[in-house]
């Protein structure tokens, strides 16, 4: 990583850099002509069906076995 006195300062610097990048990209959308999506006809999806335990089990097995600080 770039030079910095400590990890905390570097984390703040990268966060500021990232927020700045995001706001710059968002600004370029501001005077974008209003977007009209295609209209399609279908039976609308209004409610999710209740997941079954079997299905949740299958989805858990399919997820990568990765974890991060948030799982502690």
């Amino acid at each position, binding site marked *: *990583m*770039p*030079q910095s006195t*400590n*990890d*905390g300062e*570097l*984390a*703040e*610097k*990268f*966060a500021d*850099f*990232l*927020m700045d*990048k*995001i706001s710059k*990209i*968002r600004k370029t*959308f501001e005077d*974008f002509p209003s*977007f*009209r*999506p*295609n*209209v*399609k*006809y*279908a*039976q*609308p*999806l*209004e*409610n*999710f*069906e*209740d*997941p*079954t*335990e079997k*299905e*949740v*089990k299958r*989805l*858990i*097995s*399919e*997820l990568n076995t990765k*974890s*991060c*600080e*948030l*799982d502690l």
Partner: protein
Amino acid sequence: MSFYNVPTITKLVNLSLSNGVFPTHWKQAIVGPLFKKSGLELQLANYRPVSNLSFPSKLIEKDALYRLNIHFDTYNVLPKNQSAYRRNHSCETALLRFVNNLLDCMEKQEVTALIEIDLSAASDTVDHTILLGVFHSQYVVNGTVLAWVVSYLRPHSCRVSVNSTESKPRSLE
């Protein structure tokens, strides 16, 4: 892997989907800067932000996606040429299509031009209003499901982590 918690986890997923609410707490991402490739200068612009989410967050997301995909496939509402984030599609199928079109045109002695666009991306730069419009009109999603998508998209925050030291949370509102 032990599955004795499955009933509880199923209940949590169910509560989120049936109420059309994505818990705010599970939307906070930890962003780890990842060096794009060796040899580049050590400056912030050369680090890719990689967002990590908690396990329940990814699980609920995955269940919602599974259900949305069934709807998308049933009514064939995704754009014909979309190759990413879609079952049975990949770079390979996109290239196959491209090469086939190219050869077709050559056969007919037509001139072919290719335009490529490199999108500048940072996390969460998709325009939510446009995306929700597409969900509503093009994907024909309404009611609790649309409410869930709205809740999933905002509000939302992240923290940057460098060697396990975290920054203050930043709002991505």
